[in-house]
């Protein structure tokens, strides 16, 4: 079994454990925070890469799923159930170990569903929404598809921005940390900086592993065939509608997981995460990374987000991504289908198998 396709996964895993001590020693530990956030944005980008590069479907609504994940998880996790603490439902949930106790910044007792519950519910919600809108949306082509996904992203943004219960323009805050394993909590703060960096990069590595596996598998081959010609794929027994929908849901799940984790890491989320510009960023990252090129998307996702978070682009942040989009489209080799980009002829090994 060739190891070459798995090199990026291994590289990520190695960095996940080596970078914190290295950066700390170099007195640059503060980079860890932005690298952690970049990893989560890269995760959402990977999901979009699967959709755009392998299933050949554009989506301008990836940020919408990211927001669904983040908002749903934080909404559920910040509901104080103290009022119904003595109810049979609460007692049953407690018995199942699904509740967590704490105190809020003002010392008031908090009883809430454990973050694992909120996370799983949030991701399921995102998957359900993707399944629901995916069916009509994926029947569309070209600019209609682009517009429909754009419309979806906009609806999510308007809804979270306009709903008081979701914090309106201020978003949700005081989101508790997410203990994913005993002793390992997804949360902000200097003390947890190193461990959270590792968590984020390991999650990213696992996601990449799943995708690399997928594209080397029968389903991945069917996806590539689908992308290269729906008619032929159908004639060979590939249920094209279902496959497209599955990738759409997969992309949404990746975005939602990223949203959940980033929200618990930051402790808050705002309507800006659902903004169209965020969706455009994901598209730009996938485009510059090489459309069907997971490694390229990974690197572009980490790099561009890191630079953006560090403020290198200054007030031209959005403009940079717009320019990236234009340049990638213009420099891509002529006559190639949407699934290729200039970096694909630089990196032949993007092809799986």
């Amino acid at each position, binding site marked *: 079994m060739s190891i070459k396709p798995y090199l990026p996964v291994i590289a990520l895993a190695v960095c996940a454990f080596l970078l914190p001590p290295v950066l700390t020693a170099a007195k640059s530990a503060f980079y860890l925070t932005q690298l952690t956030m970049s990893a989560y944005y890269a995760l959402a980008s990977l999901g979009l890469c699967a959709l755009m590069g392998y299933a050949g479907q554009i989506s301008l609504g990836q940020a919408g799923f990211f927001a669904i994940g983040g908002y749903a998880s934080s909404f559920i996790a910040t509901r104080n159930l103290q009022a119904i603490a003595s109810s049979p439902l609460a007692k049953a949930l407690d018995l199942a170990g699904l509740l967590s106790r704490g105190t809020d910044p003002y010392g008031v007792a908090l009883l809430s569903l454990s973050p694992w519950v909120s996370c799983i519910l949030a991701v399921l919600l995102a998957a359900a929404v993707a399944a629901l809108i995916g069916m009509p949306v994926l029947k569309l082509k070209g600019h*209609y598809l682009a*517009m*429909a996904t754009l*419309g979806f992203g906009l609806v999510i943004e*308007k809804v979270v921005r306009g709903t008081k219960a979701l914090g309106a323009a201020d978003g949700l805050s005081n989101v508790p940390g997410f203990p994913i394993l005993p002793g390992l909590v997804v949360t902000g703060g200097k003390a947890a900086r190193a461990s959270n960096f590792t968590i984020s990069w390991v999650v990213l590595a696992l996601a990449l592993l799943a995708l690399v596996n997928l594209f080397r598998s029968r389903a991945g081959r069917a996806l590539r065939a689908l992308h290269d010609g729906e008619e032929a794929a159908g004639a060979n027994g590939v249920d094209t509608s279902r496959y497209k929908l599955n990738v759409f849901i997969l992309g949404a799940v990746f975005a939602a997981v990223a949203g959940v984790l980033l929200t618990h890491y930051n402790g808050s989320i705002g309507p800006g995460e659902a903004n169209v510009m965020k969706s455009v960023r994901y598209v730009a990252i996938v485009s510059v990374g090489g459309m069907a090129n997971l490694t390229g998307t990974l690197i572009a996702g980490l790099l561009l987000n890191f630079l953006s978070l560090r403020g290198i682009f200054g007030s031209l942040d959005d403009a940079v991504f717009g320019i990236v989009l234009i340049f990638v*489209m*213009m420099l891509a080799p002529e006559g*190639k*289908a949407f699934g290729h980009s200039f970096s694909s002829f630089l990196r032949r090994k993007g092809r799986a198998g």
Partner: protein
Amino acid sequence: MPPEVVLQYLISGLIYGSIYAAVAIGFNIIYNATGIINFAQGEFAMLGGMFASSLSARLPLALAIAVAMVLTALSGAVLERVFLRRVARGGVLKMIVTTIGLSIVIREAALLAWGESVRTLPFFTGNEVSSVSFLGANFSPQVFWVVGVTALTVAALTAFFRFTLMGKAMRGCSASREGASLCGIDPDRMVTIAFTLSAGIGAVAGCVVAPLTQTHYAIGSGLAIKGFTVAAFGGLGNSVAAVVAGLFLGMLESFSIVFVPEAYKDVVSICVLLAVLFVKPSGLFGSRAAGALKDY
């Protein structure tokens, strides 16, 4: 609801409906010539208003608007020649993504040039407080300008496409690029003209509503989406339907305050968009062929 309030909503619907219709017409012209959706369409309306706003400080209003129109039309031409023509061979989707990138860059450039502040234009006739009374409601005479300019634009365009040689050449091009070039028409030039025309119309619309709605560097993307909604609703490529659809959307939005909280006002138009796309992408008056992707 008292009749004056209904009238106010109607007028507001008329104003916004007209600008949506104008943006939609711009979409249609480019779509007919190239088969692509130009995401930067809304930015043309923004640029028109912004240019005019800056120029009106030094020039008489009519001249300022005229110059703004020309500047914006030129930007449309530049956009097409420099960027889109190079991407044209990559396929429709590449061009769409390029126009998305362009709309972002234009918007950020506008931010740099004009800052975040809201700009406005002087009223064409009268001022902010002049009003005309009609059926118990008071509204600004600018409304007549909006309606008048929109109607004039539609009439002029219809005449252009039906009676002038260039207009017919453009229609020939959109029906068959190859056939047109065999007749000696340069299809690339037609595309450039389409963009120029589209940008100019967007600019005019932006100028004529600016006194009422103000203008601002970021209004482009909202206009683009609503303009596309209107264009798709009426049937992509059909500009008369776009006017009808535009007015409809404007009214719907205006009256939506009755049944939906203000914060969700924009959701109404997006829902219309999604409904159109899911139920009948070819729009009310479009053909089934229009619902599929036009091959260019």
